[in-house]
Protein backbone atom coordinates (compact mmCIF):
# COMPACT_ATOMS: atom_id res chain seq x y z
CA UNK A 1 0.00 0.00 0.00
CA UNK A 2 1.51 3.34 -1.04
CA UNK A 3 1.78 6.22 1.39
CA UNK A 4 -0.66 8.20 -0.70
CA UNK A 5 -3.37 5.54 -0.81
CA UNK A 6 -2.90 5.04 2.93
CA UNK A 7 -3.41 8.75 3.54
CA UNK A 8 -6.51 8.76 1.34
CA UNK A 9 -7.85 5.70 3.14
CA UNK A 10 -7.43 7.36 6.52
CA UNK A 11 -8.94 10.55 5.12
CA UNK A 12 -11.94 8.58 3.86
CA UNK A 13 -12.36 7.10 7.31
CA UNK A 14 -12.54 10.40 9.12
CA UNK A 15 -13.85 12.96 6.62
CA UNK A 16 -17.49 12.00 6.67
CA UNK A 17 -19.88 10.46 4.24
CA UNK A 18 -21.04 11.41 0.76
CA UNK A 19 -24.41 12.10 2.34
CA UNK A 20 -22.89 14.59 4.80
CA UNK A 21 -21.26 16.54 1.97
CA UNK A 22 -24.42 16.50 -0.10
CA UNK A 23 -26.34 17.82 2.90
CA UNK A 24 -23.83 20.66 3.17
CA UNK A 25 -24.30 21.59 -0.51
CA UNK A 26 -28.07 21.35 -0.13
CA UNK A 27 -27.95 23.67 2.85
CA UNK A 28 -25.93 26.21 0.85
CA UNK A 29 -28.47 26.35 -2.00
CA UNK A 30 -31.35 26.46 0.52
CA UNK A 31 -29.79 29.45 2.30
CA UNK A 32 -28.87 31.18 -0.99
CA UNK A 33 -32.47 30.87 -2.12
CA UNK A 34 -33.79 32.19 1.20
CA UNK A 35 -31.41 35.17 1.38
CA UNK A 36 -32.09 36.33 -2.17
CA UNK A 37 -35.84 35.51 -1.84
CA UNK A 38 -35.32 33.53 -5.03
CA UNK A 39 -37.49 30.88 -6.65
CA UNK A 40 -34.67 28.36 -7.05
CA UNK A 41 -30.96 27.90 -6.56
CA UNK A 42 -28.58 25.21 -7.81
CA UNK A 43 -24.97 24.07 -7.69
CA UNK A 44 -23.30 22.47 -10.72
CA UNK A 45 -20.15 20.37 -10.37
CA UNK A 46 -17.67 20.23 -13.25
CA UNK A 47 -16.90 16.65 -14.34
CA UNK A 48 -13.56 17.30 -16.04
CA UNK A 49 -13.20 13.78 -17.45
CA UNK A 50 -16.49 14.10 -19.36
CA UNK A 51 -16.27 17.89 -19.88
CA UNK A 52 -19.78 18.17 -18.46
CA UNK A 53 -21.59 20.07 -15.73
CA UNK A 54 -23.69 18.01 -13.31
CA UNK A 55 -26.50 19.22 -11.03
CA UNK A 56 -25.28 18.38 -7.51
CA UNK A 57 -27.82 20.29 -5.43
CA UNK A 58 -31.08 22.08 -6.22
CA UNK A 59 -33.37 24.10 -3.96
CA UNK A 60 -36.87 25.13 -5.00
CA UNK A 61 -38.16 24.72 -8.55
CA UNK A 62 -36.73 21.54 -10.14
CA UNK A 63 -35.37 20.06 -6.92
CA UNK A 64 -37.35 16.85 -7.42
CA UNK A 65 -35.90 15.97 -10.82
CA UNK A 66 -32.73 17.87 -11.75
CA UNK A 67 -30.08 16.40 -9.42
CA UNK A 68 -27.74 14.17 -11.40
CA UNK A 69 -28.65 15.52 -14.85
CA UNK A 70 -25.77 16.68 -17.07
CA UNK A 71 -25.02 19.00 -19.97
CA UNK A 72 -21.85 20.00 -21.89
CA UNK A 73 -19.53 22.21 -19.83
CA UNK A 74 -19.17 24.94 -22.43
CA UNK A 75 -22.81 25.63 -23.23
CA UNK A 76 -25.43 27.78 -21.61
CA UNK A 77 -24.98 30.45 -19.02
CA UNK A 78 -23.39 28.09 -16.50
CA UNK A 79 -20.84 26.95 -19.09
CA UNK A 80 -20.02 30.53 -20.03
CA UNK A 81 -19.53 31.50 -16.39
CA UNK A 82 -17.31 28.48 -15.79
CA UNK A 83 -15.03 29.05 -18.78
CA UNK A 84 -14.66 32.82 -18.39
CA UNK A 85 -14.56 32.79 -14.55
CA UNK A 86 -16.84 35.83 -14.67
CA UNK A 87 -20.08 36.13 -12.67
CA UNK A 88 -23.13 37.13 -14.70
CA UNK A 89 -26.53 38.55 -13.78
CA UNK A 90 -29.26 38.51 -16.45
CA UNK A 91 -32.82 39.85 -16.32
CA UNK A 92 -35.75 39.60 -18.76
CA UNK A 93 -34.46 36.27 -19.99
CA UNK A 94 -37.99 35.14 -20.86
CA UNK A 95 -38.47 37.94 -23.39
CA UNK A 96 -36.19 36.16 -25.88
CA UNK A 97 -37.82 32.86 -26.78
CA UNK A 98 -34.79 31.12 -28.21
CA UNK A 99 -32.62 32.12 -25.29
CA UNK A 100 -35.38 31.24 -22.82
CA UNK A 101 -35.58 27.74 -24.28
CA UNK A 102 -31.83 27.28 -23.91
CA UNK A 103 -31.89 28.52 -20.34
CA UNK A 104 -34.80 26.21 -19.53
CA UNK A 105 -32.65 23.25 -20.54
CA UNK A 106 -30.31 24.01 -17.68
CA UNK A 107 -32.85 25.19 -15.13
CA UNK A 108 -35.89 22.97 -15.67
CA UNK A 109 -38.19 25.94 -16.31
CA UNK A 110 -38.07 29.42 -17.88
CA UNK A 111 -36.85 31.89 -15.27
CA UNK A 112 -37.21 35.62 -15.76
CA UNK A 113 -33.83 36.38 -14.30
CA UNK A 114 -30.76 34.55 -13.06
CA UNK A 115 -27.46 35.10 -11.30
CA UNK A 116 -24.57 32.74 -12.00
CA UNK A 117 -21.17 32.74 -10.36
CA UNK A 118 -18.13 30.47 -10.86
CA UNK A 119 -17.05 28.29 -7.93
CA UNK A 120 -13.29 28.77 -7.69
CA UNK A 121 -11.00 27.05 -5.22
CA UNK A 122 -7.35 28.06 -5.41
CA UNK A 123 -6.70 28.00 -9.15
CA UNK A 124 -9.32 25.43 -10.05
CA UNK A 125 -12.83 26.08 -11.35
CA UNK A 126 -15.00 23.46 -9.64
CA UNK A 127 -18.47 24.40 -10.82
CA UNK A 128 -21.15 27.08 -10.85
CA UNK A 129 -23.74 28.44 -8.40
CA UNK A 130 -26.98 29.78 -9.87
CA UNK A 131 -29.77 31.75 -8.19
CA UNK A 132 -32.98 32.03 -10.23
CA UNK A 133 -35.71 34.66 -10.08
CA UNK A 134 -34.96 37.21 -7.44
CA UNK A 135 -38.03 39.38 -6.84
CA UNK A 136 -38.58 41.83 -9.72
CA UNK A 137 -39.19 44.76 -7.41
CA UNK A 138 -35.53 45.38 -6.76
CA UNK A 139 -32.77 46.35 -9.15
CA UNK A 140 -29.63 44.25 -8.82
CA UNK A 141 -26.99 45.93 -6.66
CA UNK A 142 -23.25 45.50 -6.20
CA UNK A 143 -23.95 44.60 -2.54
CA UNK A 144 -25.86 41.54 -3.80
CA UNK A 145 -22.96 40.76 -6.10
CA UNK A 146 -20.60 40.75 -3.10
CA UNK A 147 -23.01 38.54 -1.15
CA UNK A 148 -23.18 36.14 -4.07
CA UNK A 149 -19.37 36.06 -4.16
CA UNK A 150 -19.26 35.14 -0.46
CA UNK A 151 -21.73 32.35 -1.03
CA UNK A 152 -19.77 31.12 -4.00
CA UNK A 153 -16.67 30.92 -1.85
CA UNK A 154 -18.48 28.77 0.70
CA UNK A 155 -19.98 26.58 -2.00
CA UNK A 156 -16.55 26.11 -3.61
CA UNK A 157 -15.10 24.87 -0.32
CA UNK A 158 -18.02 22.45 0.07
CA UNK A 159 -17.54 21.19 -3.51
CA UNK A 160 -13.84 20.71 -2.85
CA UNK A 161 -14.69 18.60 0.24
CA UNK A 162 -17.14 16.54 -1.78
CA UNK A 163 -14.54 15.87 -4.48
CA UNK A 164 -11.78 15.03 -1.98
CA UNK A 165 -14.16 12.60 -0.26
CA UNK A 166 -15.03 10.96 -3.55
CA UNK A 167 -11.36 10.57 -4.48
CA UNK A 168 -10.56 9.07 -1.08
CA UNK A 169 -13.48 6.65 -1.25
CA UNK A 170 -12.49 5.69 -4.79
CA UNK A 171 -9.05 4.76 -3.45
CA UNK A 172 -10.74 2.35 -1.02
CA UNK A 173 -12.42 0.45 -3.83
CA UNK A 174 -9.03 -0.08 -5.50
CA UNK A 175 -7.72 -3.50 -6.57
CA UNK A 176 -6.88 -4.97 -3.17
CA UNK A 177 -9.31 -3.16 -0.94
CA UNK A 178 -6.73 -3.51 1.84
CA UNK A 179 -7.03 0.18 2.67
CA UNK A 180 -10.63 -0.35 3.77
CA UNK A 181 -9.50 -1.84 7.09
CA UNK A 182 -7.36 1.21 7.81
CA UNK A 183 -10.27 3.47 6.92
CA UNK A 184 -12.64 1.61 9.25
CA UNK A 185 -10.14 1.81 12.11
CA UNK A 186 -9.58 5.54 11.50
CA UNK A 187 -13.31 6.08 11.32
CA UNK A 188 -13.96 4.14 14.55
CA UNK A 189 -11.21 6.02 16.36
CA UNK A 190 -12.57 9.37 15.22
CA UNK A 191 -15.88 8.45 16.86
CA UNK A 192 -14.37 7.72 20.31
CA UNK A 193 -13.90 10.13 23.22
CA UNK A 194 -12.12 10.30 26.56
CA UNK A 195 -10.87 7.06 28.15
CA UNK A 196 -12.11 4.92 25.27
CA UNK A 197 -10.15 6.98 22.77
CA UNK A 198 -7.02 6.84 24.92
CA UNK A 199 -7.37 3.04 25.17
CA UNK A 200 -7.84 2.81 21.40
CA UNK A 201 -4.71 4.86 20.79
CA UNK A 202 -2.73 2.64 23.24
CA UNK A 203 -3.88 -0.45 21.37
CA UNK A 204 -2.92 1.02 18.01
CA UNK A 205 0.50 2.03 19.33
CA UNK A 206 1.04 -1.56 20.50
CA UNK A 207 -0.14 -2.88 17.12
CA UNK A 208 2.20 -0.53 15.31
CA UNK A 209 5.13 -1.80 17.41
CA UNK A 210 4.29 -5.43 16.64
CA UNK A 211 3.94 -4.66 12.91
CA UNK A 212 7.23 -2.80 12.77
CA UNK A 213 9.08 -5.66 14.52
CA UNK A 214 7.47 -8.25 12.24
Amino acid at each position, binding site marked *: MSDESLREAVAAGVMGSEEAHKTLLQSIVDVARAIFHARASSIFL*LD*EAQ*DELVFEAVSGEGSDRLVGTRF*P*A*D*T*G*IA*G*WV*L*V*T*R*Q*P*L*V*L*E*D*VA*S*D*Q*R*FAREVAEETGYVPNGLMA*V*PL*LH*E*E*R*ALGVLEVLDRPNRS*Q*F*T*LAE*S*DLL*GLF*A*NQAAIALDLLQSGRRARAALTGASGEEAVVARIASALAGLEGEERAAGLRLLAALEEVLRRG
Partner: protein
Amino acid sequence: MEAHEELPAWSLPADAVDGIAISADWPERVDRDWAWGGSTGAGVRVCILDSGIEAGHPLVGEIESAVAVSLGEDGEPVVADDDEGDLCGHGTACAGIVRSIAPDCGLFSVRVLGGGYTGSGPVLLAGLRWAVEQGFDVVNMSLSTTKQQFASTLHDIADSAYFKRTVLVASAHNMPVESFPWRFASVISVGSHEGKGSLELYYNPTPPVEFFARGVDVEVAWLGGGSIRASGNSFATPHVAGICALVLAKHPELTPFQLKHVLHLTASNVGAP
Protein backbone atom coordinates in the same frame (compact mmCIF):
# COMPACT_ATOMS: atom_id res chain seq x y z
CA MET B 1 9.44 38.36 -24.98
CA GLU B 2 7.21 37.04 -27.76
CA ALA B 3 9.11 35.72 -30.79
CA HIS B 4 9.77 37.74 -33.97
CA GLU B 5 9.87 41.14 -32.31
CA GLU B 6 12.26 43.75 -33.57
CA LEU B 7 14.94 44.62 -31.08
CA PRO B 8 14.18 47.93 -29.43
CA ALA B 9 16.59 50.83 -29.15
CA TRP B 10 18.40 50.23 -25.88
CA SER B 11 19.99 53.68 -25.54
CA LEU B 12 19.79 57.20 -26.87
CA PRO B 13 22.94 58.68 -28.48
CA ALA B 14 23.18 62.49 -28.40
CA ASP B 15 22.70 62.85 -32.17
CA ALA B 16 19.47 60.80 -32.02
CA VAL B 17 17.64 63.10 -29.63
CA ASP B 18 16.18 65.27 -32.39
CA GLY B 19 14.92 62.15 -34.12
CA ILE B 20 12.48 61.32 -31.33
CA ALA B 21 11.12 64.82 -30.82
CA ILE B 22 7.40 64.50 -30.10
CA SER B 23 5.09 67.43 -30.68
CA ALA B 24 3.62 68.47 -27.37
CA ASP B 25 0.14 69.42 -28.50
CA TRP B 26 -1.47 68.40 -25.24
CA PRO B 27 -3.56 71.19 -23.77
CA GLU B 28 -2.82 72.63 -20.38
CA ARG B 29 -5.82 70.77 -19.03
CA VAL B 30 -6.87 67.55 -20.74
CA ASP B 31 -10.65 67.34 -20.80
CA ARG B 32 -13.18 65.11 -22.49
CA ASP B 33 -13.74 67.54 -25.31
CA TRP B 34 -10.05 67.40 -26.22
CA ALA B 35 -9.87 63.66 -25.58
CA TRP B 36 -12.79 62.48 -27.70
CA GLY B 37 -15.08 65.42 -28.56
CA GLY B 38 -16.54 64.85 -32.05
CA SER B 39 -15.06 61.35 -32.32
CA THR B 40 -17.11 58.36 -33.52
CA GLY B 41 -14.31 55.82 -33.30
CA ALA B 42 -13.88 55.81 -37.11
CA GLY B 43 -10.78 53.96 -38.28
CA VAL B 44 -10.16 52.22 -34.95
CA ARG B 45 -10.09 48.40 -35.00
CA VAL B 46 -11.68 46.85 -31.92
CA CYS B 47 -11.37 43.11 -31.31
CA ILE B 48 -13.94 41.28 -29.17
CA LEU B 49 -12.25 38.19 -27.68
CA ASP B 50 -15.33 36.30 -26.55
CA SER B 51 -18.09 33.88 -27.58
CA GLY B 52 -18.42 35.27 -31.13
CA ILE B 53 -20.58 38.13 -32.44
CA GLU B 54 -24.01 37.95 -34.08
CA ALA B 55 -23.29 40.00 -37.22
CA GLY B 56 -26.12 42.25 -38.39
CA HIS B 57 -27.72 42.48 -34.93
CA PRO B 58 -29.55 45.85 -34.84
CA LEU B 59 -27.39 47.00 -31.89
CA VAL B 60 -24.15 45.76 -33.45
CA GLY B 61 -24.42 46.24 -37.21
CA GLU B 62 -21.90 44.71 -39.58
CA ILE B 63 -18.57 43.37 -38.38
CA GLU B 64 -15.28 43.36 -40.27
CA SER B 65 -14.31 39.74 -39.75
CA ALA B 66 -14.78 36.73 -37.46
CA VAL B 67 -12.41 33.90 -36.61
CA ALA B 68 -12.63 31.03 -34.14
CA VAL B 69 -9.78 29.43 -32.23
CA SER B 70 -9.95 25.72 -31.48
CA LEU B 71 -7.59 22.86 -30.71
CA GLY B 72 -6.55 20.83 -33.75
CA GLU B 73 -6.12 17.05 -33.81
CA ASP B 74 -2.51 17.43 -32.72
CA GLY B 75 -3.63 19.47 -29.72
CA GLU B 76 -2.23 22.71 -31.16
CA PRO B 77 -4.54 25.74 -31.43
CA VAL B 78 -5.90 26.53 -34.90
CA VAL B 79 -7.34 29.89 -36.05
CA ALA B 80 -10.00 29.61 -38.78
CA ASP B 81 -12.76 31.74 -40.29
CA ASP B 82 -15.90 31.57 -38.15
CA ASP B 83 -19.45 31.49 -39.49
CA GLU B 84 -21.10 30.25 -36.29
CA GLY B 85 -21.97 33.75 -35.09
CA ASP B 86 -22.30 33.89 -31.30
CA LEU B 87 -22.68 30.70 -29.28
CA CYS B 88 -23.77 32.38 -26.07
CA GLY B 89 -24.90 35.99 -26.50
CA HIS B 90 -22.12 37.42 -24.40
CA GLY B 91 -19.81 38.48 -27.22
CA THR B 92 -22.72 40.16 -28.99
CA ALA B 93 -23.54 42.03 -25.77
CA CYS B 94 -19.96 43.33 -25.53
CA ALA B 95 -19.89 44.27 -29.24
CA GLY B 96 -23.18 46.17 -28.87
CA ILE B 97 -21.84 48.20 -25.96
CA VAL B 98 -18.68 49.16 -27.88
CA ARG B 99 -20.84 50.07 -30.90
CA SER B 100 -23.14 52.25 -28.77
CA ILE B 101 -20.17 54.36 -27.68
CA ALA B 102 -18.01 54.27 -30.82
CA PRO B 103 -20.56 53.86 -33.66
CA ASP B 104 -18.05 54.00 -36.52
CA CYS B 105 -15.30 51.75 -35.16
CA GLY B 106 -14.49 48.45 -36.89
CA LEU B 107 -15.51 45.35 -34.93
CA PHE B 108 -13.59 42.07 -35.21
CA SER B 109 -14.66 38.85 -33.54
CA VAL B 110 -12.16 36.32 -32.17
CA ARG B 111 -14.12 33.42 -30.69
CA VAL B 112 -12.25 31.57 -27.95
CA LEU B 113 -15.26 29.80 -26.44
CA GLY B 114 -17.22 26.78 -27.56
CA GLY B 115 -14.43 24.19 -27.59
CA GLY B 116 -15.16 22.72 -24.17
CA TYR B 117 -13.83 23.58 -20.74
CA THR B 118 -10.71 21.44 -20.85
CA GLY B 119 -8.95 23.20 -23.73
CA SER B 120 -10.16 26.67 -22.87
CA GLY B 121 -6.82 27.90 -21.44
CA PRO B 122 -4.62 27.21 -24.51
CA VAL B 123 -7.39 28.50 -26.79
CA LEU B 124 -7.61 31.76 -24.85
CA LEU B 125 -3.83 32.23 -25.07
CA ALA B 126 -3.75 31.47 -28.79
CA GLY B 127 -6.67 33.82 -29.46
CA LEU B 128 -5.05 36.68 -27.59
CA ARG B 129 -1.68 36.09 -29.23
CA TRP B 130 -3.34 36.09 -32.66
CA ALA B 131 -5.24 39.31 -31.86
CA VAL B 132 -2.02 41.05 -30.83
CA GLU B 133 -0.28 39.85 -34.00
CA GLN B 134 -3.07 41.40 -36.10
CA GLY B 135 -2.28 44.77 -34.54
CA PHE B 136 -5.82 45.56 -33.39
CA ASP B 137 -5.97 48.93 -31.65
CA VAL B 138 -8.18 47.70 -28.79
CA VAL B 139 -8.88 44.17 -27.53
CA ASN B 140 -11.89 43.67 -25.23
CA MET B 141 -11.41 40.75 -22.83
CA SER B 142 -14.44 40.18 -20.63
CA LEU B 143 -12.88 36.97 -19.35
CA SER B 144 -10.00 35.69 -17.27
CA THR B 145 -8.23 32.51 -16.21
CA THR B 146 -7.25 31.33 -12.74
CA LYS B 147 -4.65 28.81 -13.98
CA GLN B 148 -1.22 29.78 -12.71
CA GLN B 149 0.44 27.83 -15.54
CA PHE B 150 -0.89 30.36 -18.08
CA ALA B 151 -0.01 33.47 -16.09
CA SER B 152 3.55 33.87 -17.31
CA THR B 153 2.67 33.42 -21.01
CA LEU B 154 -0.30 35.77 -20.66
CA HIS B 155 1.99 38.29 -19.01
CA ASP B 156 4.40 38.13 -21.95
CA ILE B 157 1.59 38.57 -24.48
CA ALA B 158 0.18 41.51 -22.49
CA ASP B 159 3.59 43.21 -22.41
CA SER B 160 4.03 42.56 -26.11
CA ALA B 161 0.64 44.18 -26.81
CA TYR B 162 1.54 47.17 -24.64
CA PHE B 163 4.71 47.88 -26.63
CA LYS B 164 2.99 47.30 -29.98
CA ARG B 165 0.22 49.79 -29.16
CA THR B 166 -2.55 47.26 -28.80
CA VAL B 167 -4.62 48.20 -25.76
CA LEU B 168 -5.94 45.26 -23.75
CA VAL B 169 -9.06 46.12 -21.74
CA ALA B 170 -9.79 43.32 -19.25
CA SER B 171 -12.54 42.53 -16.74
CA ALA B 172 -11.48 42.52 -13.11
CA HIS B 173 -12.60 39.83 -10.71
CA ASN B 174 -14.79 40.64 -7.72
CA MET B 175 -14.04 37.42 -5.88
CA PRO B 176 -11.14 36.60 -3.58
CA VAL B 177 -9.13 34.62 -6.15
CA GLU B 178 -6.04 35.28 -8.28
CA SER B 179 -6.93 35.57 -11.94
CA PHE B 180 -5.36 36.95 -15.10
CA PRO B 181 -4.71 39.03 -17.20
CA TRP B 182 -6.58 41.89 -15.53
CA ARG B 183 -4.05 42.09 -12.67
CA PHE B 184 -1.19 42.98 -14.99
CA ALA B 185 -0.08 46.63 -15.06
CA SER B 186 0.19 46.52 -18.87
CA VAL B 187 -3.59 46.14 -19.32
CA ILE B 188 -6.51 48.42 -18.45
CA SER B 189 -8.57 46.62 -15.80
CA VAL B 190 -12.23 47.41 -15.26
CA GLY B 191 -14.76 46.81 -12.47
CA SER B 192 -18.39 47.97 -12.15
CA HIS B 193 -20.09 51.00 -10.60
CA GLU B 194 -23.84 51.33 -10.07
CA GLY B 195 -24.33 54.51 -12.11
CA LYS B 196 -26.38 54.81 -15.30
CA GLY B 197 -24.05 56.86 -17.49
CA SER B 198 -22.23 54.99 -20.25
CA LEU B 199 -19.43 57.57 -20.17
CA GLU B 200 -19.37 57.61 -16.35
CA LEU B 201 -15.85 56.40 -15.65
CA TYR B 202 -14.01 56.39 -12.32
CA TYR B 203 -10.29 56.05 -11.74
CA ASN B 204 -9.52 53.85 -8.74
CA PRO B 205 -6.64 55.27 -6.67
CA THR B 206 -6.20 51.88 -4.97
CA PRO B 207 -5.46 49.31 -7.72
CA PRO B 208 -5.20 46.56 -8.95
CA VAL B 209 -8.62 47.43 -10.45
CA GLU B 210 -7.82 50.70 -12.23
CA PHE B 211 -11.18 51.91 -13.55
CA PHE B 212 -14.88 51.49 -12.78
CA ALA B 213 -17.44 51.75 -15.58
CA ARG B 214 -21.15 51.07 -15.98
CA GLY B 215 -21.78 47.39 -15.23
CA VAL B 216 -25.12 47.17 -13.41
CA ASP B 217 -28.50 46.77 -15.08
CA VAL B 218 -27.25 47.47 -18.61
CA GLU B 219 -29.53 46.93 -21.61
CA VAL B 220 -27.37 44.72 -23.87
CA ALA B 221 -27.71 43.05 -27.28
CA TRP B 222 -28.34 39.30 -27.09
CA LEU B 223 -29.00 36.47 -29.53
CA GLY B 224 -31.62 36.59 -32.27
CA GLY B 225 -31.59 40.36 -32.62
CA GLY B 226 -32.96 40.80 -29.12
CA SER B 227 -31.72 42.40 -25.95
CA ILE B 228 -31.76 41.69 -22.22
CA ARG B 229 -30.73 43.49 -19.05
CA ALA B 230 -27.43 42.30 -17.61
CA SER B 231 -24.98 43.07 -14.82
CA GLY B 232 -21.32 42.18 -14.32
CA ASN B 233 -17.80 43.44 -14.90
CA SER B 234 -18.07 41.72 -18.29
CA PHE B 235 -20.31 44.61 -19.36
CA ALA B 236 -18.31 47.38 -17.67
CA THR B 237 -15.25 46.41 -19.72
CA PRO B 238 -16.62 47.15 -23.23
CA HIS B 239 -17.69 50.60 -22.02
CA VAL B 240 -14.01 51.38 -21.47
CA ALA B 241 -13.03 49.65 -24.73
CA GLY B 242 -15.51 51.94 -26.50
CA ILE B 243 -14.12 55.06 -24.85
CA CYS B 244 -10.59 53.94 -25.81
CA ALA B 245 -11.78 53.66 -29.43
CA LEU B 246 -13.15 57.22 -29.31
CA VAL B 247 -9.88 58.61 -27.96
CA LEU B 248 -7.67 56.64 -30.35
CA ALA B 249 -9.73 57.71 -33.37
CA LYS B 250 -9.02 61.34 -32.50
CA HIS B 251 -5.46 60.80 -31.23
CA PRO B 252 -4.04 57.77 -33.07
CA GLU B 253 -0.52 58.58 -31.95
CA LEU B 254 -1.23 57.73 -28.29
CA THR B 255 0.57 54.77 -26.76
CA PRO B 256 -1.27 52.54 -24.23
CA PHE B 257 0.62 54.38 -21.49
CA GLN B 258 -0.59 57.77 -22.74
CA LEU B 259 -4.11 56.49 -23.36
CA LYS B 260 -4.36 55.26 -19.77
CA HIS B 261 -3.22 58.68 -18.65
CA VAL B 262 -5.97 60.33 -20.74
CA LEU B 263 -8.55 57.99 -19.17
CA HIS B 264 -7.24 58.97 -15.76
CA LEU B 265 -7.32 62.71 -16.47
CA THR B 266 -10.85 62.56 -17.90
CA ALA B 267 -12.30 60.20 -15.27
CA SER B 268 -15.51 61.38 -13.61
CA ASN B 269 -13.78 61.65 -10.23
CA VAL B 270 -10.66 63.42 -11.57
CA GLY B 271 -11.07 65.95 -14.36
CA ALA B 272 -14.56 65.53 -15.75
CA PRO B 273 -17.76 66.91 -14.22
